[in-house]
């Protein structure tokens, strides 16, 4: 089932593709028997029907100047047609990769609508080549399923990873180590009563061998990471402490940290670091328990309202007679 946002977004892909004229002059479709209306992108190519002309051309024989020109024009038209076919295959490959990222199956009609267009009679050839590219270049297999076999998904054919390899892969892209650094900072902030002075944060990091302006092989420039990235991504709040002279700044948890992790989890992490139990810090432990209770309540409320909405939707669609697609 197509979700609304996707169908809104993709026409832009198509519309812009037609506007930008990035494809060079196209000829008509390649099937011999058809006389196609020239596409709007057609430029100065000879408006010929390749199939019908082939017999004519052969009869005309290549050796007159006119014959040579005709053959050259036909060769040019053929090359352009092949280029267009290649482009369409390439676009279909990209389209399938992008759609697969969203984990939604792709239908044949979507492919025709957004990528293939008036080459739709060549669909079997196009999809076969696209499938081969996906297999050879990316290691994906294009699989058909569904009642009429007009729905497709991509399956990863690369061998599955061992557990340690999987962990390694999660670390890549810098997120793992960076988030580890973030948790250290969140822990410090929490243990210091929900805010920590900037100097305290850098002191802790220095003890870990991380200096603000020295390029670190895992974190890049730590100062940029902490002061800019984490703050921009709303993991940390950074503000000036009022009435301090010289002015000092402090960090606190940002809204995104509250969403993605909990006080209890961070306390657990700090506890493990010190090889102790979370209860070793009674004040923080009590606060974390209260936080857990709050979260449980909020979650229960959210689930209850979701169930109510689902019931309302179900009875509405029942009345309207809409079934699953």
């Amino acid at each position, binding site marked *: 089932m197509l979700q609304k946002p996707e169908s809104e*977004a993709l026409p832009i*892909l198509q519309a812009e593709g037609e506007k930008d004229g990035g494809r060079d002059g196209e000829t008509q479709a390649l099937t011999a028997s058809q006389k196609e209306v020239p596409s709007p992108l057609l430029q100065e190519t000879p408006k010929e029907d390749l199939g019908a002309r082939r017999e004519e051309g052969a009869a005309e024989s290549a050796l007159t100047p006119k014959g040579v020109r005709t053959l050259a024009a036909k060769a040019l038209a053929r090359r352009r047609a092949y280029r267009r076919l290649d482009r369409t295959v390439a676009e279909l490959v990209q389209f399938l990769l992008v759609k697969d990222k969203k984990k939604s199956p792709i239908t044949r009609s979507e492919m025709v609508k957004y990528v293939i267009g008036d080459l739709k009679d*060549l669909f079997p*050839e196009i999809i076969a080549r696209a499938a081969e590219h996906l297999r*050879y270049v*990316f290691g994906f297999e294009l699989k058909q399923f569904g009642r009429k076999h007009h729905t497709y998904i991509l399956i990863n054919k690369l061998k599955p990873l061992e557990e340690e390899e999987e962990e390694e892969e999660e670390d890549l892209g810098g997120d793992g180590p960076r988030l580890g650094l973030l948790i250290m900072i969140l822990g410090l902030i929490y243990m210091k009563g929900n805010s920590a002075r900037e100097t305290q944060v850098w002191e802790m990091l220095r003890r870990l061998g991380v200096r603000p302006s020295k390029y670190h092989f895992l974190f890049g420039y730590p100062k940029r990471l902490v002061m800019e990235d984490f703050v921009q991504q709303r993991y940390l709040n950074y503000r000036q402490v009022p009435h301090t002279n010289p002015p000092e700044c402090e960090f606190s948890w940002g809204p995104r940290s509250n969403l993605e992790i909990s006080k209890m989890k961070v306390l657990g992490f700090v506890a493990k670091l010190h090889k102790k139990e979370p209860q070793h810090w009674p004040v923080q432990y009590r606060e974390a328990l209260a936080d857990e209770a709050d979260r449980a309540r909020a979650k229960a409320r959210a689930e209850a309202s979701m169930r109510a909405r689902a019931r309302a939707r179900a009875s509405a669609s029942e009345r309207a007679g809409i079934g699953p697609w």
Partner: protein
Amino acid sequence: MGAPSPRSPRPEGAAAPAFLLWPPAVGAAPGYRALSHPQGGTRRAGVMTDVHRRFLQLLMTHGVLEEWDVRRLQKHCYRVHDRTGAVEELEDFINNINSVLESLYIEIKKGATEDDGRPVYALVNLATTSVSKMASDFAENELDLFRKALELIIDSDTGFASSTNILNLVDQLKGKKMRKKEAEQVLQKFVQNKWLIEKEGEFTLHSRAILEMEQYIRETYPDAVKICNICHSLLIQGQSCETCGIRMHLPCVAKYFQPSLEPRCPHCNDYWPHEIPEVFDPEKEREAGPSKVSKRSLRSRQH
């Protein structure tokens, strides 16, 4: 699968598929060879193995990666699929993959962050497309917001567009009506997905957007677009000569003026009035990013 199966059986991951070397069968006259055809067999494409495939899959997942991450990624792929093999030099490794990607009109492109020249890599379209890669993650009105922000950024002198100016355009967006509050969150989504960078309430393009959209930008905004005098690539942030107006990326300035004691404009030879940033060196300790300094210099030029 209902579609015809591949032409010939081949060992897993070894030779290139048949159609990369043959011209397509449809409509082919006997004896026809496409010489100017990108797939026409005049260029021998590299060979893909599972090492390369996993590398591509992971690079696609991340969108854009810094060079040190890319090296770790490459080593990881060798460890998983080819433990005993020697890890190929990164540049050759990538060129090998790119030769195969050519027939798909995509490539792994190397660029650099505009503020301090850190090398980055992304998988980009070679054919001109618009914001198509974003199209799957964002709704129509969100894409239009991005386009509006993009236009403001390109038109600006500093390469930054203020949040206020972008949000003021919210009424002009195509698609579903968007409130300013919502638009603020959409802008944050762009930052998180590495399409925009935010600095002090202003937005500029992430190196990912520059890599992926350079061609589109140059073709869509040919009059407003700025080009670096040294590397001739798209320029969003940079320094400019106050006399003749030519512009240069900060890392290009760093490299160009590195040996000279008295920096002079390469075009008009006038004294270069800005602070020269340092060349990016992962080993050296220095302040993270000279962007604040140069932004001030650029701003002072505005009036």
